[in-house]
């Protein structure tokens, strides 16, 4: 059942190409604005500025992409899912799908930043692992928050208000790891942060899995 729902998300995404391409253009324009701002002053893009710009871009793109996972759904379709699937399958398939989406967006963001603003990261393997863990954390927490805010009437504002305090702990750890990667400090320095990130991911995923049925019922 999870697999079917997972495939359905992909099929829907491929059918509505406008949404996916919209997200890519959103990502591109943000990276391009960063490039235009710093174009002739390359000495201003210190590694820390690079990390801050990168994570801000990724955060906003991912929030926008995951927000639509429940907010965009039509009312009739929701009732149809309700009758054929159980809530645990739905949330797991949505988290898995959003995880793939967030990972793809983050790595294309990395590529865009590489092209426009250079690449101060010394340790690409650790940085990629931190991107993977962060994407999982974003997917697990933002999917649940998207389903919460889809129930309210001013859902797009609410999504930003609710998600900021929840994802900030993930983001803080990610920024710290990328700082270590920029300095080329290796595994010893980032190990603690990566473990904490993984632990937060487990916590957030478990909470989403347990709590989603209560939202789904209404």
């Amino acid at each position, binding site marked *: 059942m999870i697999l079917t729902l997972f495939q359905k998300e992909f099929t829907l995404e491929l059918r509505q190409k406008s949404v996916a391409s919209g997200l890519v253009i959103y990502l591109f324009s943000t990276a391009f604005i960063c490039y235009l701002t710093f174009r002739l002053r390359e000495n201003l893009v210190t590694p820390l500025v690079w990390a801050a710009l990168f994570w801000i871009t990724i955060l906003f793109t991912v929030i926008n992409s995951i927000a639509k996972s429940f907010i965009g759904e039509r009312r009739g379709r929701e009732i149809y899912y309700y009758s054929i699937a159980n809530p645990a399958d739905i949330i797991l398939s949505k988290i898995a799908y959003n995880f793939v989406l967030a990972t793809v967006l983050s790595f294309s963001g990395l590529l865009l930043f590489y092209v426009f603003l250079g690449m101060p990261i010394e340790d690409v393997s650790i940085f990629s692992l931190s991107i993977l863990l962060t994407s999982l954390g974003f997917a697990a*927490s933002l999917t*649940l*928050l998207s389903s*919460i*805010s889809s*129930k*309210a*009437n*001013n859902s797009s504002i*609410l999504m930003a*208000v*609710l998600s*900021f*305090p*929840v994802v*900030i*702990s993930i983001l*803080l*750890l990610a920024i*710290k790891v990328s700082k270590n990667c920029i300095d080329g400090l290796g595994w010893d320095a980032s190990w*603690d*942060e990566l473990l*904490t990130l993984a632990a*937060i991911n487990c*916590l*957030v995923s478990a*909470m*989403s899995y347990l*709590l989603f049925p*209560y*939202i789904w*019922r*209404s």
Partner: protein
Amino acid sequence: MFGARKFWWKLTAVLLLAYTVIGGLLFQVPRLSIVNETIRALYFHVPMWFGMVFLFSVSLVYSIRYLRNPLKGNDTIAVEFANTGLAYGLLGIFTGMIWANYTWGTPWHGDPKQNGAAIATLVYLAYFVLRGSLSNEEQKARISAVYNIFAFAAMIPLIFIIPRMTSSMHPGSGGNPGFNMYDLDSKMRMVFYPAVIGWILLGVWIATLRIRIRNVEEKILDLEDNV
């Protein structure tokens, strides 16, 4: 309602807090460099965080109870304990800012603990925004209960884990004198522990008063509807 059975813990709260104010301001405290007399903030600032975590935990328990058994009373208790906990959190931030003004030089120093505390209060402000934007009463209670549980889980790394991983100027970390077994003078414990209990009891008292006000208001509304 006003029998001795329910009255004793309120009396305890009053007595403990009177003792805290008198003892906290007059008793001898150890002279530590930089901190000096501001160490007395321990009796007023630190109990705010103990109280906040306690009140938010009660709110969490009643949110879980609401999801298991959707009674309106459970929701009311969860909301009012979250409200009082938020007030304690804000008081904790303000008392910390007064203290920081004298020891660190500026009220807001961008310390990891200050930032964590600010974000934790944002979580609960978002909880009230969420409640405000849902109109259906039953949906409001259930969805905000879900967010309350989720927010509490997200708050744990902010308050308890991340500040311990970074260096901080806050007492008790980074080699600064503070709350641990060797620094806390045994005389200070005699005021500190009663202060923590007193402030927690006061928080519970405020929350129960607010719950009763809310219940009375709802009864009045019901009566008006029937007329």
